[in-house]
């Protein structure tokens, strides 16, 4: 029989010392977002600032594999600006005519550059924890945008008596309160090109909105079309009811 020596696995560590499942996380408080509701649209300026936060902070560990640089034109960037952004990254390509893999500057059609070549490398560089891909983060978390915002602003000193595992951080809104990600955003971390005050809350709000757009880039098109469809359908409903009443009136 053919034996495969696959030293897959590992990743999981320990147990004994940890107390039973720590208390449930707090429910993230509800925030008001411009893209909420039937008529909500994205705030493009916030999306651009959010992209800047992603690019300068989050992108060090988090990939966004489902996005391409060309998508950034939706944030209001010109194709020229997108070209410049893409060219800042070295994208693996190949093989070339010599059969070698090589790197080249990114183009708008390329997917976002990932910080790690694969999940194993990402774990190895982050103490065993895998920074999740953020392309769909808003849709893949309970409470979506509110949750992301709360995590970013929910770092606190651990309460007295809380048994925090080494290498982890205390976060009010994280299940079990022990999160591997160190506090990513601080007051004044990103200097906005549009001069907006870079408070922690502002940066968290901006990047949250950017992530909301990333997970649902067609939202504005969807709602705009939906409105027209609804008007059409309601008129159609009215016509159908009138037609039916007229028809059935004869036989009663």
């Amino acid at each position: 029989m053919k034996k495969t020596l696959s030293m897959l696995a590992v990743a999981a560590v320990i147990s004994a010392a940890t107390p039973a499942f720590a208390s449930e996380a707090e429910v993230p408080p509800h925030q008001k977002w411009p893209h909420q509701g039937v008529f909500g649209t994205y705030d493009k300026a916030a999306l651009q600032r959010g992209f800047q936060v992603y690019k300068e902070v989050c992108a060090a560990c988090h990939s966004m594999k489902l996005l391409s640089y060309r998508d950034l034109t939706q944030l209001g960037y010109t194709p020229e600006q997108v070209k410049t952004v893409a060219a800042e990254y070295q994208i693996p390509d190949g093989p070339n005519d010599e059969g070698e893999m090589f790197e080249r500057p990114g183009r708008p059609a390329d997917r976002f550059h990932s910080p790690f070549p694969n999940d194993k490398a990402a774990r190895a560089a982050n103490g065993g924890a895998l920074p999740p891909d953020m392309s769909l983060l808003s849709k893949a978390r309970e409470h979506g945008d509110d949750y992301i915002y709360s995590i970013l602003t929910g770092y606190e000193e651990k309460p007295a008596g809380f048994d925090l595992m080494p290498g982890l951080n205390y976060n009010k809104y994280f299940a079990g309160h022990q999160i591997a990600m160190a506090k990513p955003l601080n007051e004044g971390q990103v200097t906005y090109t549009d001069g907006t005050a870079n408070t922690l809350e502002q940066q968290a709000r901006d990047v949250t909105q950017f992530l909301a757009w990333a997970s649902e880039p067609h939202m504005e098109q969807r709602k705009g079309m939906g409105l027209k469809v609804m008007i059409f359908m309601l008129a159609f409903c009215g016509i159908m009811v009138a037609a039916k009443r007229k028809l059935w009136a004869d036989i009663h």
Partner: protein
Amino acid sequence: MAHFGENKNFSNPVVNWIDNRLPIFTMLIKEYGVFPMPRNVNYMWSFGGIAMTMLGIMILTGIMMAMNYTPHTTLAFDSVERTMRDVNFGWLLRYIHMNGASFFFIAVYIHIARGLFYGSYKKPRELLWMFGVVILLLMMATAFMGYALPWSQMSGWGVTVITSMFSAIPLVGDGLVTWLWGGFSVDNPTLNRFYALHFLLPFVILGVVFIHVWALHVTGSNNPTGVEPKTPADTVPFAPYVSTKDSVALVFFLTIFLGVVFFYPLALTEVDHFRKFDPMQTPAHIVPEWYFLPFYAILRAFTMDITIPFTTVVLLPAKLQGVLAMFGSIILLVFLPWLDRNPVKSGRFRPVFKWCIWLLFVDFFVLMYSGAKPPEGLPLIMGQLGTLYYFVLFLVILPVLSFKEKNLPVPASISADPGCCKKH
């Protein structure tokens, strides 16, 4: 359906030429034109047609999405996201297909509830009803396999949990699960076969729907009185009367459906459906889609092994009980025409049955709630009581009511019913 040799004469020579060789126009006029419908059918009778429309919508959007889908564990999730992001109107196709499944089930559940309340399963419509149950089972299988295709956390773990049920079967169970999976875990062979079957089954459903409608057109439709039409005064032609009425219901239904598609497309799904399947990590809280929740609650209602008294020898393990009960809860519907033998069809004239059926509808939602919660404490008890009522109703109450119930007087004909034919 078509009665050959009774061709009508059409003024259009082309139509006439075709009809003399294949009497399709004669058939259409007979079955969808002059076809007699009880004149008192209410809007509950529109949901069969609505369900058929949903099937059509699902097949159309499904085929368009299949053109952009890659059935491979490493590519499936991304190919669905590519549909969402890059394919023209791909997001619309997917949101219609995703929510369409839910609305298909809404239509079918209302259709079934109407059949239950008005006794549409009784003679002479037993076979019509039984084919309906077959359609329900096929729909469930199709929906389950479709849910697997994006290969998300919910997909992978849903497949694992549901297919693992078959391991409850004594002796052959484990082998059967390996056969279903095509391997020792839920993996690429599983995804491939689910894709093939998810593509195939809707057309099987279409075939059974054809038989279902054929059987309907032999007996004609039931109506709120449960009294079969006796004279032409009891009926109206299907077109334009009932077809227009059905269209009203359909347009309203589609309006609500599209409202959800465009404005709340994620209302009926789970966040873990947007995370890639990780076979090494089960999400903390997995639940099936809402339309499976009542049956899921029945599955989980059984927590105690049945043993030979005074020993520890297990006769029927809790797991097997749950699996049998879950499948049994749908299979027993096949036998409903013989479980309820009361000669009166409509719940309107059966004072006890009426309330028992209403309680069943409430029970359905109680079970749905229970199925959505972790199986402990109050939700578990609700699930157990709900399961108890479900089986007691069908296996005890309905057979007893068949003979013991004091029915109200039934009108002599549809047009003699005071509830019929009032101004709308």
